[in-house]
């Protein structure tokens, strides 16, 4: 590869993204989770720019800026102000058994490497080895949504999955076509608008954002 430094930098950033994914799994304070999410977005934006520089695919600069605007500034800001407005910044998530969650997370990472192994063989891109990290981030986001019972935290898991998907696109193919990336960003923006409304609805109807309270629609046996 023409840019050994870029490849190494990219691996470092991938490691940081994975690290922040694990950090998200263990954080208990709302604000800390939002901050960690913003850091993850920043690593993602830098990594996209680095790949764009090393590969000469200049459209990745636009993607990088888009990530910076959406995932580092806009979404954390929206979540931040929602948390303040709903007065839940002091609440602490009830997290059961962090060690076993971490262990499941580790298994998911190994599984991701296993799953993407055939693709690593085929690809000649310098980013091929980070695809596993991307898939792991998606899975860790899913794990976070399953293990946490708070609406805000679940949304952060959802957004983390989106980070993972974006990272997958940059590492597997140097990014999706521009029209697709813009469309995904638009969907994300609408989703942000919707979950903002949801937080208020859930809060007024259930007096809390704990989703365990919403358990009426179970199948009757």
């Amino acid at each position, binding site marked *: 590869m023409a840019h050994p430094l870029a490849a190494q930098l990219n691996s470092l950033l991938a490691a940081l993204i994975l690290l922040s994914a694990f950090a998200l799994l263990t954080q208990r304070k709302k604000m800390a989770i939002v901050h960690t999410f913003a850091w993850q977005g920043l690593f993602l934006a830098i990594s996209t720019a680095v790949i764009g520089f090393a590969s000469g*695919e200049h459209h990745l600069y636009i993607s990088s800026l888009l990530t910076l605007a959406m995932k580092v500034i806009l979404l954390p800001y929206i979540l931040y102000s929602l948390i303040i407005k709903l007065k839940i910044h002091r609440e602490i998530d009830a997290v059961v058994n962090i060690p076993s969650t971490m262990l499941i997370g580790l298994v998911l990472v190994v599984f991701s490497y296993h*799953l993407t192994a*055939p*693709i690593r063989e*085929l*690809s000649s891109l310098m980013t091929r080895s980070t695809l596993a990290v991307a*898939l792991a981030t*998606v899975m860790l986001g*899913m794990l976070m*949504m399953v293990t946490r019972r708070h*609406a805000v935290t*679940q949304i952060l898991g*959802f957004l983390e*999955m*989106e980070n993972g*998907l974006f990272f*997958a*696109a940059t590492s*597997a*193919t*140097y990014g*999706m*076509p*521009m*029209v*697709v990336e813009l*469309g*995904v960003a*638009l*969907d994300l923006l*609408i*989703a942000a608008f*919707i*979950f903002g*409304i*949801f937080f208020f*609805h*859930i809060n007024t*109807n*259930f007096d809390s954002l704990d*989703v365990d309270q*919403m*358990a*009426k*629609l179970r*199948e*009757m*046996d």
Partner: protein
Amino acid sequence: MIILSLLGISILVALILAFVGDWKYAPEVNISGSLLTFAVSLVLAFQVYGEGGSVAGSTYFFVDYLNISLVVLTTLVSTTTAIFSRRYMRLEREHGRVGHWRMRFYHAMFQLFIFAMLIALLTNNFGVLWISMELATLATVLLVSLYRTPNSIEAAWKYFILCGVGIAQALFGTVLLYFAAERVLGAGGDALLWTNLSRVSAQLDPTVLRLAFVFLMVGYGTKAGLVPLHNWLPDAHSEGPTPISAVLSGLLLNIALYALIRCKALVDGSLGPGFAGNIMMGFGLISLLTAAFSMLRQKDIKRLFAYSSIEHMGIATFAFGLGGPLATFGGVLHMLVHSLAKSATFFSVGHAAQMHGTQEMAKIRGLIKGNPAVGWGLFLGVMALAGMPPFGIFTSEFLILTATMKEAPWLAPPLLLGLTVAFAALFFKVQPMVAGGKAPGQQALTAANIPVFLHLALVLAPGVYLPVFLADWFHLAVEILR
């Protein structure tokens, strides 16, 4: 040009309704917008027929026999739903369940939803297909929670989160598909175009496509409500306003299945039939059986029909998985007639629930005595859904069953079991609701009858007599999938 005006109308009407959606004549604006879209889609259909195949696949859109059939269906059902929603929502407003702002929101989002589905059907790009699927979901999330009751908010949250997680898998699948395509077609936006991909599908790397299909199956399978990814569906389809239930069950599930069969066609090109087909047959059969048995213990009328949607999606998925001209023909026909019959049934169900002020089946009695049109509409709709001759669903299920007997006879007994249980559940739950004396406290209402009976007539048509040109049309649509 026609395609652009087709999409333009719905987005323009959505914008207008965002401002005047609570106006006295807003439902009429909604109807005329949908009707206009329907007319344009018919023009497009004739153009496709005239040019004998596909209207030029550009970078953005393409039209062939398969997707134009679904476009015409989508615009037709959206028009009849708009007609039904005029009466229905007026009553809801009189009952004080929705206010001014929510009417504006409702009308605007209805058209945006149609817009998203039309893009999903017409786009040539697999990435845009994903985006518009997600847009269609997002447009309907807040419609499910329109009444702001705790139950509806719970349903909408589940819909938002579970479908969000599900469809994220489909995006990962799309990334993998792009990865495989780029190696053949070169970098750039053209590598995700269906018209290019279907040309080179034999050269796509089988290992990557196998992995991609698993992710695509989970993603779009969630949206199509296939078991075990169906948890959100009964809630989302039963808690929202009934017009939305009708389009969610009748249209959005079809779009998800459409995405899935397009993916299958590509995977088959690379891996040969078998891999994708077997997965789809498994999902389809499990969905059919689980949904059929779940229907037996439902107490809420809209949940009953939500499960019936899972059942029918299962049948169609099974048929496409089985493959071959006969089963695929049955599958395409099944998608079309199920959509019409299900939305017609939901229209009757909506009025029945309004007459009794509840969705609980035990409290709905004597519909035929109370309002013959609603009662008979519900009864005939259910007979159509249960697969009674001479309705079109009988024809499609018969075709699928015949193909199963021929291709995979050991799967015919479970298929037949599912169909029988579903029939029994529907018949015994609905019969006491329509027959017998009126329930105490039943209210009279003026129902919107045209949509129901128009749909039922259209469902009847293929069961009685399928015009030659339509049969040809379906055969050509089936050709695309082989």
